[in-house]
């Protein structure tokens, strides 16, 4: 399952890279790409793992960049 997730108020390009690296390491992620200029993240996981991965990704993003609001 592949889905685009909005990252509202993603203002720091360096953080975008950090987020991408961190989410990449979550167990079950097939591919992830954070687009700083588009303020979005395209996340791909197996269908049954998606919600779990997304929850974990949200927590990670909160930690890396507290200003960012994640909107699935």
């Amino acid at each position: 399952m592949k889905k685009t997730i909005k990252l509202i108020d993603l203002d720091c390009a360096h953080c975008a890279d950090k987020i991408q690296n961190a989410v990449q390491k979550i167990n079950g992620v097939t591919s992830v790409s954070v687009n700083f200029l588009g303020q979005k993240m395209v996340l791909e996981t197996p269908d049954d793992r998606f919600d779990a991965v997304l929850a974990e990704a949200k927590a990670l993003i909160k930690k890396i960049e507290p200003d960012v609001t994640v909107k699935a």
Partner: protein
Amino acid sequence: MTRKQKHLLYRILTAAVLFALGRLLPLSEWAEMGVFLVCYAVIGWDIVWKAITNILSGQVFDENFLMTIATIGALILGEHSEGVAVMLFYQVGEWFQSYAVSKSRKSIAGLMDIRPDYANVERNGKLEQVDPEEVLVGDTIVVKPGERVPLDGKIIKGTSALDTSALTGESMPRDVGPGMDVISGCINQTGILTIQTTKEFGESTVSKILDLVENASDKKGKTENFITRFARYFTPAVVFAAIALAILPPLVTGQAFTIWIYRALTFLVISCPCALVISIPLSFFGGIGGASKLGVLVKGSNYLESLSHAETVVFDKTGTLTKGSFAVTEIDPVGMKDKELLELAAYAEDYSNHPISLSIKKAYGKKVDSNRITDVQEIAGHGVQAIIDGEVVLAGNAKLMEKDHIRYTPSNSVGTVVYLACNGSYSGCILIEDEIKADAPDAIKALKEIGVRKTVMLTGDADAVGQKVAKRLGLDQVYTELLPADKVDRVEELLQLKSEKGKLVFVGDGINDAPVLARADVGIAMGGLGSDAAIEAADVVLMTDEPSKIAAVIKIARKTIGIANQNIVFALGVKLLVLILGALGYANMWAAVFADVGVSIIAILNAIRAMRVKKFDSSVH
């Protein structure tokens, strides 16, 4: 301005006033320190807070943490005004950066502002305004003047002029009428159009284009990857250098620790790689956005990089350099006028829908009165025989003339020749050729001018035809009578011949050239308006089918790469310079703040230049 930006702006203004008061009022030392501390709290609380939470979650080399250490360090060393000012300017820089990025985000979005907001769909005889995504295939939609066509479809009723400039960069409106296909994203200018949809929104041209351009920045080029990797090492390296600078020199030279700690703190201010990390992708995104404004879709930054090194450009002939449609180019009558011969041919070919016949009828231009024609016979592989106004007319190839023992003069023109005879005597011939695109000669010339070393044409067509086209266009090399598989082999050969750094670009019409498009370093397809196969197979799509856009996109690519390189050299250069001056004690924290946020802002402004591409558009005179 977003709410976040406004909020920060107020804090900056408050802090600036407090800072000025602290500097200007004749306060006692303690009172002055008090004012500065309040000022620091106003401007820097969120940075300090983020630093603490990030440390707790195990992120050490975080810019918030580094700024906190640097400014608090300065306060402890007794440099009160400097500590506060650095934080203040850091925030001013952050604000400016955020503002510039959201501005450029908006202008890039503006370049691609082709998304239709709604569709007027006819349901139960009434018009309803709905989201384009809710419209089904086969639904009837109505597009009023000034509205954007929301989905691809066929016109049932109405005529109008369509503005396709958002998709193609072409400023001439296209006239459309019933039975014609329209693609989404165009703006209806004059009449009301009733359209039956042929695709759902997700499959429509506008969605495909938006998807492609928006995701183009996911395919990162070498420069971008280098910078991302560089950024990961830059910050820790500078921080360790700062620690070494604070400890080692005082131990060796016996100088005061405070001098070296201050110098180390300036290092920390410089350590954020933001200028690079923001401006490089922004340059590429701007270049891609600018190209799309000219009707050229580039699928990734990596292709811009390759295009900038284009050395060999290989063209397919039909549909790329030529229109792929036939037209009458020469009329050679015997004993009658040009017009009469053309009329004769048009009547003889009236019943046929062969491309050759269509081109003759198009050249004739008038309506054929079918009452004058009786008894039409098609002679397979030869041509036709028809009775027109009671006279027996033959129209076809040389074989037809020979079969009926007509004494004709064989034409030595290159192309398709239609011979005509009337009542057994030869009346002349008509030459039909695939037309060369109007801008093709200029396209080849422009490529030569910008330094492309070799232009090559591949074609499955007859040798004489291919040679003629190649000569007229001034191509360096031509391979003719190729089967589709041969084209791949020829491209392989050309790939061997080019220099190591140079890139091979293949330009085809995208429908049957997929393997070659894939094999070349960069595959460029003629998109035609909305041809799916082309959009999928190629790395770059020319929406207007004009080969002259190739030189334009190569120029855009070079400009973009140039800007990206300028930014790398400038940002790294200034940072390095300030690091060296800082270590020697010549640069203070002010210079360090400039090297951080000042450089970011300048680099962003430079990156925005990549969006301006108007001057590369050869079709605007």
